[in-house]
Structure formats: structure tokens, C-alpha cells
């Protein structure tokens, strides 16, 4: 075992050197007197501290978060293998993708001089923060090459790196205190969803917008996203509270019987998705009819136009929300929000009005009336914000899970869902069902879920060993062959297997 031993020593030596450097870099920062940086809109509240929270890069985390539990951190709270897992997560390759042939093709067609340097690409493919917030020189600490790295999601770590492993009681420290240091509370389902969706749906304020010309030039389509499902497929590098064991539960006053975390995440992220999508839509529409303003086709339902025309067409059979032939927004963010409405006992007419206003705005003329779209989308966003607050306050327990599963089936049977919406509903079902106890007719349910997987290709190209482009052909085939009436029949079958209390 000489070789591993050697490697370990080398690694420790490298780590020590790096740690020394880190203290030298980060230390003065703790006491420097810079002004707090304006946060980006998709990100959580700004650190209230007067120091600038800066980005240290993934190397700073690798020191502790790679090789597993040791020392006083040897408990169920943290895995300490996060870095290693992240290395198998596509997020770590987000920047590297920009060097691949497809990215070059996109750049060439869009006349982008260098896609590895252009903000339109970097804002999602790396932690593309201002230069003065990057600590260290290239190759040492902060690196664009880290892609979507630790501090992209956990927050710039210069102010909290040291306290988060030295300060007693850090774990249970109030979130607001941690946020002051630049720490993002990704355990909070709303914050986490906002963070994920700022790229996976988009955010104008952050400059994270995939436009139609990017798609046309070859960018793979952004799929609909159910945050709990996507989190699991990253692959997930953390434990949920329910997996952390009784000791930690006690410290956090957590009762796994009363709190179904992933169910909560699914319900809340469904509502956040609508807000993020509506915000993006509103800010795009507000630009009006100037160049690169409205219409921006990427804001419309891709598959409303992009489908081979079939003689037997389910779209013709289904009919249209507004005027036929006038594409609407992507409808999937409107689907899971219904779950939140039903759980909160929200009056459905309120959201119906907002949705109808949006439908009418899109129907007023081809590509819609941008002013009316902006107004209706803002209204929908404000409404979903209030719903998020109501839903955050409530309990997610077994009776709630049972109700949610029934409601999901009802939602799926009431409408004629497009592919993205169908996938959202089914993903949500799978997450909530995984937390349901007891599972009375598990065998039957699993068998139907398997059929749904065939119909919808629920499995995501998870991790670095699977490629999005590699699976794209099959994925698009699945979309093109999707039939909402087949989906509905499967859901009907599924609903018959559920407990009816």
C-alpha cells in the first residue's frame, strides 16, 4: 500500500500549503473594510456585514469535504465527501462544457467571439462573479474552471469559511446570522429552489437567460425542473435531515414523522418555479418590441411550434387555451403550483384569473401583447410569492402526503398535460410517494411508475458519466412521441392504487 500512502502524504502536504495560503488570503479579508456587494437577484439576501464576502473556489472546501468523516466531525451531520461527489456532478464540468465542439458551434453561429469568456455563457456555466470578488490568482484558489462550484450555491465563503468549522454551535446558528456572512441557506426549500432555478429557468437580473437563438444554434433545451428530483440526480452530496439520525434530530428539534422534507421541497419549489418563470417572462416582456426584446421565443412553449404535424394530432383533439396558433408560455410552471393551491386551501379563482389574464395576453396577437404579458406575469409572480409564504408555514406530514398524492392524480386527470407538465407531476408523485408510509400497494404503484418512466423518460442523465447531449436524441424522441391521453390513462390507473382516506 505504498502508493496510496504516498498519494495521501502528497495530498496532505499540498493541502497544508494551500491552507497556509488560504489563511494568508482570507485572514485579512475578515477584517478588511470593503462595502457589502449587491447580491444578484436570484440569490439570497445580502450579507449585512460590511466586509465583502468573496469567492474562494472549490479548493478551499476540498481540504475537509473530500475524504469522509474524521476528527470531531465524525457524526451523521455531514458526509465530508461532498467535494468528491461534486466532482462526479455535472455542475463541476459546467465551465469545461464551453470548450467542447457544440459550444464552439453555438459561438460560431451566434458570432460570439469566445464562449469561454462571454457573460451570456459564463453566468450559468461558472461562478462568474466580479473580478474583485475572486480570491487568489488563476490556478490557485478561485477558478472559473470549477464551473458551478461550492460557493456558487453555498455562498462566497471568505467570511464564513473559518467560523463554519471553528465556531461552536455554528450548525444551529440562526440562518439570518449565517446569511450576514454570505452563507446561503440551501436547507431552506425556497432559497434552494430560487438558487437552482435562477439558472435552470433563468433570471434576467442575473444575466442568466437562454435565448431562442442559442437554442437554434444548438444549445440543448432546458427541461422542466422539479427541484427535489433534480437534487437527487446531481448526484446529491448531502444528507436530508431525515437521514441524519436521532442525535442530530434532537439538536434540531426535528421529528421525521411530522416533517417530510422532500415533500415540502416539492410543494414549495413548485410554487417558486412559477415565480421565477413569471419574473423572467415579465422582465423579458417589459423590454417591449425593441431589438432582442419581445417576442423572445425562448419564453414560449417550445413544443407548441416545434412538432412534426401529424394527421392524428392530440393538439387538435385537445383544443387550445387561447386562439389556436398563438403560442403560450411554457405551461409546466403552472402545473405543480396547483398542488400548493389545493394544499393551502387557496381560492382557485384568484390564480385562475391571473392565469386567464396571461392566456389572453398571449392570445391577443401572435406572440402576445408584451405590455399585457408583463402585467399579468408580475401579478402571477406576486401571487405566488404570497402562496409560498402560506405554504412555508404549514406542516408536511403523512396525512398531507396522502392528500398531495391524490391531488396530483386529480390535477393530471383534469387537464390534457403537455410532456413537461406530465413529467413535473410524475416526478412530484415519485418524491412524495417515497416519503409515504405505509405503502399499501407498493408493487402495483411501482409497476405503473415504471410504465410512466417509459412514457416520459423520467430518469435524468445524472452525473458526469452520463452526457446531456448523449441522451438528447432519445429524450427528444420521447417528447416527440408523447401522447397526453396515454399519460392520463396511466395516472388514472395510479390513482386507483392510492389510499382513500
Amino acid at each position, binding site marked *: 500500500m505504498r502508493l496510496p500512502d504516498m498519494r495521501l502524504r502528497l495530498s496532505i502536504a499540498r493541502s497544508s500549503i494551500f491552507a497556509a495560503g488560504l489563511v494568508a488570503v482570507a485572514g485579512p479579508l475578515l477584517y478588511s473594510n470593503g462595502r457589502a456587494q449587491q447580491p444578484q437577484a436570484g440569490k439570497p439576501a445580502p450579507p449585512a456585514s460590511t466586509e465583502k464576502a468573496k469567492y474562494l473556489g472549490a479548493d478551499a472546501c476540498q481540504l475537509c469535504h473530500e475524504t469522509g468523516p474524521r476528527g470531531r466531525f465524525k457524526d451523521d451531520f455531514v458526509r465530508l465527501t461532498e467535494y468528491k461527489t461534486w466532482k462526479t456532478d455535472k455542475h463541476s464540468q459546467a465551465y469545461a462544457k464551453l470548450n467542447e465542439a457544440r459550444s464552439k*458551434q453555438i459561438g460560431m*453561429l*451566434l458570432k460570439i467571439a469566445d464562449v469561454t469568456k462571454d457573460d451570456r455563457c459564463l453566468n450559468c456555466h461558472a461562478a462568474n462573479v466580479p473580478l474583485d470578488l475572486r480570491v487568489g490568482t488563476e490556478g490557485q484558489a478561485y477558478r472559473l474552471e470549477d464551473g458551478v462550484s461550492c460557493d456558487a450555491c453555498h455562498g462566497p465563503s471568505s467570511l464564513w469559511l473559518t467560523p463554519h468549522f471553528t465556531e461552536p454551535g455554528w450548525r444551529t446558528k440562526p440562518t439570518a446570522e449565517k446569511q450576514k456572512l454570505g452563507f446561503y441557506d440551501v436547507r431552506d426549500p425556497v432559497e434552494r429552489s430560487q438558487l437552482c432555478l435562477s439558472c435552470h429557468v433563468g433570471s434576467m437580473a442575473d444575466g442568466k437567460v437562454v*435565448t*431562442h*437563438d442559442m*437554442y*437554434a*444554434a*444548438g444549445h*440543448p*433545451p432546458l427541461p422542466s425542473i422539479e427541484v427535489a428530483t433534480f437534487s437527487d440526480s446531481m448526484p446529491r452530496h448531502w444528507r436530508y435531515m431525515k437521514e441524519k439520525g436521532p442525535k442530530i434530530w434532537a439538536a434540531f428539534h426535528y421529528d421525521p414523522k411530522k416533517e417530510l422534507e422532500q415533500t415540502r421541497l416539492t410543494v414549495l419549489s413548485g410554487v417558486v418555479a412559477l415565480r421565477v418563470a413569471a419574473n423572467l417572462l415579465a422582465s423579458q416582456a417589459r423590454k417591449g*418590441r425593441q431589438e432582442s426584446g*419581445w*417576442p*423572445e*421565443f425562448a419564453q414560449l412553449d*417550445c*413544443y407548441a*411550434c*416545434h*412538432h*412534426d*404535424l*401529424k*394527421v*392524428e*394530432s392530440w393538439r*387538435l*383533439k385537445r*383544443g*387550445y387555451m387561447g*386562439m*389556436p*396558433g*398563438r403560442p403560450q408560455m411554457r405551461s409546466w410552471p403552472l402545473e405543480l403550483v396547483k398542488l400548493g393551491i389545493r394544499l393551502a386551501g387557496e381560492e382557485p379563482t384568484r390564480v385562475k384569473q391571473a392565469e386567464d389574464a396571461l392566456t389572453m395576453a398571449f392570445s391577443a*396577437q*401572435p*406572440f402576445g401583447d408584451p405590455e399585457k404579458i408583463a402585467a399579468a406575469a408580475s401579478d402571477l409572480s406576486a401571487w405566488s410569492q404570497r402562496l409560498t409564504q402560506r405554504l412555508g408555514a404549514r406542516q408536511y406530514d403523512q396525512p398531507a402526503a396522502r392528500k398531495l398524492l391524490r391531488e396530483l392524480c386529480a390535477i393530471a386527470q383534469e387537464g390534457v398535460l403537455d410532456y413537461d407538465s406530465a413529467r413535473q407531476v410524475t416526478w412530484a408523485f415519485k418524491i412524495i410517494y417515497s416519503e409515504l408510509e405505509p405503502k399499501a400497494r407498493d408493487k402495483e404503484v411501482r409497476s405503473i411508475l415504471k410504465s410512466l418512466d417509459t412514457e416520459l423518460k423520467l430518469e435524468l442523465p445524472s452525473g458526469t458519466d452520463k452526457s446531456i*447531449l448523449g441522451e*438528447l*436524441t432519445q429524450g*427528444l424522441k420521447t*417528447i*416527440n412521441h408523447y401522447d397526453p391521453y396515454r399519460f392520463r390513462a396511466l395516472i388514472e390507473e395510479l390513482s386507483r392504487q392510492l389510499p382513500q382516506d
Partner: protein
Amino acid sequence: MLQPNNLTERFRRFLAFLVVSGLCAFIWHGWPRSPLAGQPGVASSNNSAQLANLQCLGVSSCASTACHYGSGAQGAKGSEYTTWATLDKHSRAYNVLFDELSRTILRNYKRLNAAEAPHPEREALCLRCHAPDQPGQVLGGPSLIAQTGSGLDGVGCESCHGPAERWRTAHYLPDWREKSATEKEALGMRPTKDLVARAKLCAECHIGTAQREVNHDLIAAGHPRLNFEFSAYLANMPSHWCEQGENARADFPARSWAVGQVVSAHAALELLEARAHSARDANTQKAWPEFAEYDCFACHHDLRDDTERQNSVFGKRAPGSYPWGTWYYTLLPEIAREKPAPAAAKIADSLKELQALMARPYPDPVAVANLARATQDHLDQWAKTAYAPLGRASLESLLSRFSHDRSRSTVADWDGCTQLYLAIVPLYQASQGLRGLPENRDVLAELAGLRSLLQFGAGFNSPGNFHPQVFRKELDRLQKLAPQ
């Protein structure tokens, strides 16, 4: 050249799908606001008001066994009604409104709920093309079917030949033949022998006008797209007549193709102008931009992860922009090159400018209307030259260019390739005809190969399986078409 032969037969089979997808009844709805007035066979404007009030007498007034209801073969003199009634889809234009698809279309278009029954057979919008000339109806006037429910004749004789109120009892008298076309027109009979007039007449429904418009709203509701190509439609229609005089010459297929291209472009530009005008009027609720103006299949294709589209199409236009006028204008500049005139030179530039305007996500309707008008003016000034027969040298030069690399690089989509095919066939027919040669078996086989590449897959209304590169390769094999 209308004698059924191998090629026209194949041609028909190919065109069946075009017609099915483009079937919209012929109708004659008063004279167009004719910028081509003064051209042979086109009525002067002071006739318009008079003609617009003439009544139709209905198909039954023509269908006496002694007159047009004979029992001869297709196209036999005296059996015109018989041919129309038994073979021609125009006679079923009204009945088709009772089909399930027609009901679905209207249900979607009017967004009816489950309790409301759609009645396309009573809907003015549908009847304007599907039953335009019922007894007692003023051509272009309100339909009587909606009230009586008795219209069964579809697109009848008078849709094309003109309302017969003032000429029915005169047109079989001995002195009728003495009358000039203009005199006949004054009584309401249309000069269908004149190819230009004939093409304009078809275009009224098959391309559309401001009043009879198949726009994208209607297409999205389920109505087939209109993609009219005059010479192909003419060859495909079971003709109930024999061409005579100039029309019986060997160059007829080429002439009908060239005339059809120019007339169609003019009609399409008129429609574009009307659409742009209505876009400026907030009260019309008309769609703008009007997607039916664009290449359907630029958007309507299953998304696939192949880079063929990106590589082949986007050299010519910005990724994600949408291409205008791919059906009606692709080959027009080629004809203009072959029939030079001062106005002809401006056509290609005007079209390019329109293309650039229309490619914007929200085209400026005022600029579009003005440019569409200006382009029509160029066409009008060019008309005299444009409608003259092509001549063997010209048509063979076109034929050779259409099967040559340079011109082919301008057509990268299904619309363009289909127009190319629809041009090559009549040009080849005419070329062989003028040389007194029979159609070559190998060439026919090549053309059949080209056609099969353009055909939609079973169950599809779009060319999901079409690859421009494959089409071009196949076209290479047609080089032998070029006259030696």
C-alpha cells in the same frame, strides 16, 4: 400536353397530397382590385361594380343532358358537368364541411365548449370558399346556404366561369362565338381560356384575399395549409375541357408554370399588403405577424439533436429567425433574370428587403405594406414581358440552372425544393415537347425519385423525414436533363 401520359399521371399522384393539404375551393368573388388591368383577359375596373351584383344560377342550370351533362369520357365536350361532378374535388367542397375534421377545425377556431355544436356548413368564413356560387347568390355576397341549408354544390361552374345571370341564355346561341372576350366579360363570363385570368381566379381561394383568408389561426385550428402552384394544380385537376389555340402548344406546361409563378407572387403580395394594413388597425383583431406568410416547417419540426439544420440553414439566416415567403417567391427572381426588363431587375432586391423586414420578430407593418405595394408595382410593370411565352432557349436555360449547383444553394428547405421540383417537371415537359422528343424514361424515374423525397411520411402533414442534402444529391443525377 394535357393528354394523360406517364409523367402527368405520376405528377398527379404526387400532387394528391398537395391538393389534399391545400384543398380549398375555387371561388370567384368579383374582380380583384386589379393592378394588372389592361393585361389580356383582365376586366377594366368600371365593370367591377356591375359584375359584383350579378347573381349565380347554380350548377343545375348548366347540367342539362343536352348541354353539359353528357355521358362522354372525362373532358369530352358536352360532359363538363359530368367530369366535374364525378372526378373533380371542387364538387365536394361543400360536403367536406360535414366531415369530422371540419367540425374540429371550427370548434378549435371559435373555441366552442363541449355543449356547443360547430356548424362549418353554416359558417360564412368557410362558405366563402367552400360554396361560393349557390343559386340566387351574388358572387361574393352573403351565402344563402346559411339560411336555406340547401347548398350542396361546392365550388360550381360559376365560381370560375362567372355568374351566369346575363349570359346563360345567350352563350349557346349562334352569335355567341362572334363575341369578343371583352364583350363576354361585360356579361359576367370570365375568360378562363386566358391563362393569366385563369391563374388569378384560382388564386382567389387557393392563395386567398383579405376577405377569404386562410390564416395561421385557422391552420392551427386544423385547416390544411394553402400551398398553391398553378401549373401543378392545373395538371392535377381532372380537366373538363380541351386546351385550344395558344394553350394547345407544346410549351404550355412551361407557360402555365411561369404565369402561375408571377400571378401567385402578385396575389400573395396583395394579401401580405392587406394583412399588414389590418395589423395597423387595432379593431380588426387580425394576427400580426401572420405566420402563414412563413415557412411552416422552419418551426414545425420535431426537435432533433442533429446539427444538419444548424449547418445547412443558418449560414443563410440568423439562427432562430423565421424565413418569410419560402413558397411563393423562391423562384421568381430566376424568371426575372430570364425575362429581363427594367422592372424585373428590381424584383429580387424588393423581395430581399421584404425578407429582411419580415424576419424581424415584429415586422413593422407600415414598412411591410409599402414594400409589398412597391413590389406589386414592379410586377405590374414587368407583366407584359413576364406573361409572354418563355421560348425554348429561355426555358432550357432555366431548366439547366434549376438542376445546377448555384441556384440550388438558394433552396435549403422543403418549400424551396418542392417549388424546384414543380418547376423542373413542366419545364422538362415543354423542352421535350418543343424539341418533338418523347419524355425520357430515365429522367422520369429520376423525377419520381425526387418526388418521393418530398412526400410526407404516412400519417404526417409535414416533411419530418426530408433532408435537403439528400434532395440535392438526387438532383445531381438530373444533370443529364440539361439539353446538350
